[in-house]
């Protein structure tokens, strides 16, 4: 099996995990989670140097910050499949006394989570701080962060963009989940983002555009981002995805941003996603 095929199979299993978790909890955010499954898989199973024996400081390893915390299902499934904790624990998603809170938190001590996110616009600043800590301690690994596109409407994001460019935080690779959708509808109807590429460039960032639902493109994009880092400028990947990718009736619409499938919908979704690594 080639690396590409293997990664694609992992992403498919993670998609199965996502819909099963959200169905079981009768709540959660499947749309963005499904759209970002390829990205998470490429990051954790190929491009990131990381240790499932979790250390908060992340010294000597790459660190990932999920700023759009509501897509916790894909984050949790990825962490579990990477060995941070037992996949059985995915059963506890959004249950009482669980480490798998609705939005990721350090509060319950779940390995792999370094900051509580969910109130949008905050994770990018935190990622910048971690990147600065790596520079201060002569640690040459990267910090990755993912934000939503609707999340870019938060003012703090643009404060962070200015800061990262001004302080030449060039060990930071930010990805925007550019699916064009948010809770109330398409970005263009809710609050237009304008020319995103020009905006990031004018803030002094190195900008890449990448297809986010083709594994090969994601791998190439992340490698290109790394190649462009270390040159005094922070790097952003504008990642074109489809919300709900992989499940036909959830795909390309904001309607599945934060809605759980019922029993029949679960059955239909799972019939479209092969069980490649064994369900939890």
């Amino acid at each position, binding site marked *: 099996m080639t690396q590409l095929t293997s990664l694609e199979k992992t992403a498919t299993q993670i998609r199965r995990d996502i819909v099963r978790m959200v169905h079981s909890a009768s709540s959660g955010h499947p749309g963005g989670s499904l759209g970002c499954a390829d990205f998470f898989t490429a990051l954790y199973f190929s491009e990131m140097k990381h240790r499932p024996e979790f250390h908060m400081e992340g010294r000597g390893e790459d660190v990932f910050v999920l700023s759009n915390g509501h897509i916790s299902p894909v984050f949790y499934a990825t962490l579990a499949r990477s060995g941070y904790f037992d996949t059985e624990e995915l059963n506890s998603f959004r249950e009482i006394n669980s480490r798998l809170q609705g939005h990721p938190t350090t509060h319950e001590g779940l390995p792999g989570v370094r900051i509580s996110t969910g109130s949008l616009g905050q994770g990018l*600043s935190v990622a910048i701080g971690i990147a600065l800590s790596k520079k201060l301690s002569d640690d040459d690994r990267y910090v990755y962060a993912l934000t939503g596109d609707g999340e870019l409407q938060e003012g703090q994001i643009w404060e962070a963009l200015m800061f990262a460019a001004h302080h030449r935080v060039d060990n930071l690779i930010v990805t925007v989940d550019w699916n064009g959708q948010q809770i109330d509808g398409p970005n263009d109807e809710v609050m237009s983002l304008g020319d995103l590429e020009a905006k990031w460039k004018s803030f002094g960032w190195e900008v890449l555009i990448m297809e986010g639902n083709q594994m090969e493109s994601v791998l190439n994009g992340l490698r290109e981002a790394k190649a462009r880092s270390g040159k005094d400028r922070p790097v952003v990947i504008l990642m074109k995805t489809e919300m709900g990718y992989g499940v036909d009736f959830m795909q390309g619409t904001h309607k599945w941003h934060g809605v759980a499938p019922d029993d029949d919908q679960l059955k239909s979704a799972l019939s479209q996603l092969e069980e490649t690594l064994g369900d939890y």
Partner: protein
Amino acid sequence: MLKKLLNSKEKKATRDGFGDGLYELGKTNDKVVALCADLAGSLKMNKFIESYPLRFFQCGVAEANMMGVAAGLATGGYIPFTGTFANFSTGRVYDQIRQSIAYSNKNVKICASHAGLTLGEDGATHQILEDIGMMKMLPGMTVINPCDYRQTKAATKAIAEHSGPVYLRFGRPGWPIFMPESTPFEIGKGILLNEGSDISVFATGHMVWQALQAADQLAGEGISCEVINIHTIKPLDEEIILDSVSKTGRVVSAEEHQIAGGLGESIASLLARKRPTKMGIVGVNDSFGESGKPTDLMDKYGLGVSDVKAAIKRVLES
């Protein structure tokens, strides 16, 4: 003891204590880093910046991002001290502090100058009087309001050794330096400044000086005030409060803050639960401030020495 404390000859702002403490920390603790949102001069951070430029991050007028960057630096094992005015250190960035610092339990030291009415001429836009309340409500947050230059310097050094988020509140104006050099600073431990038998006066921040003067003047009228400095509002030193109250049976608190949400409410809550006691609260009563000179504002908004004395007499006569 009272006369000795009141014999203070020197004035210096509490913010100078912060700046000097931070500078000393720079020398002794290489994990300490500092961030500022375009107020480095006002926060007296310049000595640290000149000596340790690589450990200082200018954030510009962007406080929300500063709090997040601080949380990230803490995640990476550093001890960030953020510096801006108290107004912009709390209300402006409450959600950032709640999510990225308090709930995430990050070892960030939120250092806030120009708190309260004594900021003076800039007026109510900048005179925050609600910050103690906001910060003490956050689970796990330590809240400290030191009373003079020396105590602020000692507190700045002490919070670097404490693991977890801290809100350190101090002020703008020159203020008498009266705490003895030898007084140790321990987070969460009140300091007995004057023994008395008629009433316990618990004061924090600039109001400690007012309380000492009130106690001195009342001594001349035969009223014996026990004055205790509660520099740490959370966690509250319940022991020193209950011990003193069990002796005096009367209480007045004093702070440069709204009555709602302040030290007085914390003490009242403690006493209601463990030892119901007649109590008065000196603080700002549900009002914004205004432009003016610090001492004039304190008099107008009920924080003068005469206000402390009146509160003490009211409680004693009730």
